[in-house]
């Protein structure tokens, strides 16, 4: 039995500590991990919990992220609760195995501290890794600050392990801006958290000697499609369970989560649509605009996968212009978020003007002034009822301005 950890009503935690504490409280059976900046403190904190008797499980420092995720898959198939953390290159090395985890329907939890992908090598935050893993068949939850990283990591276990879901879950947080920024966090006491997360009830455990099971079969064209369709179906339908868990968490803590996060959107004409820590900066910029009488709001996603299609359509239904903010190198097309928002609004049959801003790559600061400038462009478009600026612009880049289309 693990020792109880004494927690104050309010703790000062950075995002890494918040995630590590949530893993501890979920009493994960097996954590197999490999360090990488900026998520390293998660595994360090976790080892200290183990060294001090606060965790009763196994922590395996494997020799690579590929093995870390492989270890999680095997432990989970054996019937253990499994989790790990990574960033960037480590995430990239895991990608092959991310697909195995979701294809085998194993509810592993992965905390991703988002960081740029090399080259050039860069340890700072952007969302390149988030988008690299977006289509791996995992549920993807996004947090903006340490409190949310903690809350969503606890909820991740409950969502992924639900028998109607049985899928792995990633919880994203911004490298350094969240992972290394200490803030007040209101934790649950250990017993409350443990009860909320609940016991893990494995399906088809490899350790049941009376019932041998085969995990990770080969299928060709005669079955592969059916497997993938079923997996997609259950991922799409996981929204019901996600909603239920969000509601239960609200009843327990008063903290409210929804698929789409909205700030001052009820009467907004223009909106910034961003993920991660930028959401909080955008709120400050929106307040500034509102002082000038410009009705600005902020929209974000809590749940990147399954993509909350209808909720996005609804959030933007009365907006005249919206900025789709992509914090990852677009690699020869529009930003990933822009593409998804545009698709949703095209299908809605009524679209606001949508501009694509590429920003903050490799940890480049995005200031309130940048966001105010974006709101001003949106405001002009809203007033004109048409796009007055290039479709894709780079924000905060040195040298000549860069824009496309």
């Amino acid at each position, binding site marked *: 039995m693990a020792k109880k950890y004494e927690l104050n009503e309010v703790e000062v935690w950075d995002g890494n500590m918040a995630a590590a504490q949530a893993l501890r409280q979920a009493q994960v*059976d*097996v954590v*197999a991990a490999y360090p990488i900046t900026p998520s390293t403190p998660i595994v360090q904190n976790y080892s200290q919990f183990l060294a001090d008797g606060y965790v*009763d*499980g*196994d922590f*395996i*420092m*494997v*020799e*690579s992220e*590929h*093995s870390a995720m*492989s*270890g*999680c*898959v*095997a*432990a989970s*198939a*054996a*019937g*253990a609760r*499994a989790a790990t953390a990574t960033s960037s290159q480590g995430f990239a090395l895991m990608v*092959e*195995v991310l697909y*195995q985890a979701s294809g085998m329907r194993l509810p592993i939890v992965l905390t991703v501290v988002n960081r740029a992908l090399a080259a050039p090598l860069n340890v700072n935050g952007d969302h390149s890794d988030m988008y690299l893993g977006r289509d791996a068949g995992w549920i993807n939850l996004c947090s903006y600050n340490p409190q949310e990283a903690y809350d969503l990591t606890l909820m991740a276990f409950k969502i992924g392990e639900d028998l109607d879901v049985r899928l792995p879950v990633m919880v994203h947080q911004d490298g350094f801006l969240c992972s290394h920024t200490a803030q007040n966090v209101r934790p649950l006491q250990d017993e409350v958290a443990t009860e909320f997360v609940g016991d893990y009830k494995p399906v088809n*455990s*490899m*350790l*049941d*000697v*009376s*019932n*041998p*099971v*085969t*995990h*990770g*079969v*080969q*299928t*060709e064209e005669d*079955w592969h499609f059916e*497997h993938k369709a079923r997996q997609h179906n259950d991922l799409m339908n996981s929204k019901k369970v996600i909603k239920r868990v969000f509601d239960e968490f609200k009843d327990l803590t008063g903290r409210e989560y929804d698929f789409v996060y909205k700030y001052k959107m009820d009467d907004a004409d223009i909106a910034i649509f961003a993920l991660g820590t930028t959401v909080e900066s955008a709120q400050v910029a929106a307040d500034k605009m509102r002082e000038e009488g410009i009705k600005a709001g902020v929209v974000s996603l809590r749940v990147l996968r399954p993509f909350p299609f209808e909720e996005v359509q609804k959030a933007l239904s009365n907006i005249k212009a919206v900025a789709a903010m992509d914090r990852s190198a677009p690699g020869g097309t529009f930003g990933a978020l822009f593409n998804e928002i545009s698709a949703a609004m095209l299908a809605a049959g009524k679209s606001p003007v949508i501009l694509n801003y590429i920003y903050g790559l490799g940890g480049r600061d995005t200031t309130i002034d940048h966001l105010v400038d974006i709101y001003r462009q949106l405001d002009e478009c809203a007033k004109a009822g048409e796009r007055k600026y290039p479709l894709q612009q780079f924000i905060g880049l040195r040298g000549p301005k860069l824009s496309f289309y």
Partner: protein
Amino acid sequence: MTKKIKNLKEFSLSNDRYEGANLMCPGCSHNIIVREVLNATNDPVIVATATGCLEVCTAVYPKTSWDVSWIHIGFENAAVAIATAQAAYEVLKRKGRLPEATKKMLEEGREPKFVAFAGDGGTYDIGFQSLSGAFERGHNFMYVCLDNEVYANTGGQRSSSTPIGASTTTSPAGTVSYGEKMMKKSMVEIMSDHGAPYVAQVSPSKWKDLVKKVQKGFEVNGPVYINAQSACTTEWKHAPEDTIEVSDLGVESCVWPLYEIINERDEHGIIYNTKLNITYRPKNKIPVEEYLAAQPRFKHLFKPENRHIIDLWQKAVDTKWEHLQRREEAGV
């Protein structure tokens, strides 16, 4: 619990956990080895397999050849998979959360065995990182390399286990080439140097020796490496009915010496004593040429311009055999 085995007939009829009627080629040694390993114990066995012939031919949905729990994740991770499943077992045992039937088995004083099977590609090359890591960390499992000296599943490309002179699809013999240029990696020694408590080389043709070593390995606490010679009818290009004959030529020529290395060590991996035993000594060591001649993958070596490669082979095999005998004598 060590299983007593009297003769081959009894052995072949005992306690089958693996259906031999699968999609492997006729005469494939992988099948023989897997059956021999699984038959060596009465305890439950939990298996991880790397990508390769064994995996693609034995678990094609909705069928499976495995009547033991089995997992395939990828090409590179059989070692870490089985090691972590074993670690999960220890945690769940401690927490009292094992399935009921497994708890009952424990009360009877039995424990499951954790075994990984991988080809030489999944072992010598792409899976080496996870294999090395799992051995260094001292997990409690057995790793069996089905060493057919080639990437068979993808059509016969060279691996770092392919021996000199073998013609493969990526080291083909041609008008100016005799095929593979390098002798194979010494995997048994490499794994022994990881401090593994038990490491052995086996051939399916010497089934009693194989079973004895597997049983020894199952008794050991810590990582065990078994390098199994696995003649591949498709890539070695011999007739299916000659598999055991070809394997035996390998053993009798000392191309494939049968030996074991025992590292006496404590729970921290500190080794106090190393012992090498040659477990089969051919009465009349036959020339390597006879082994090579039985396999068309070496056919071109018998052309006059390539004869020197056969001489090199003989020299390499003699040197290694000499070395093994000296190690055995010296007890190191």
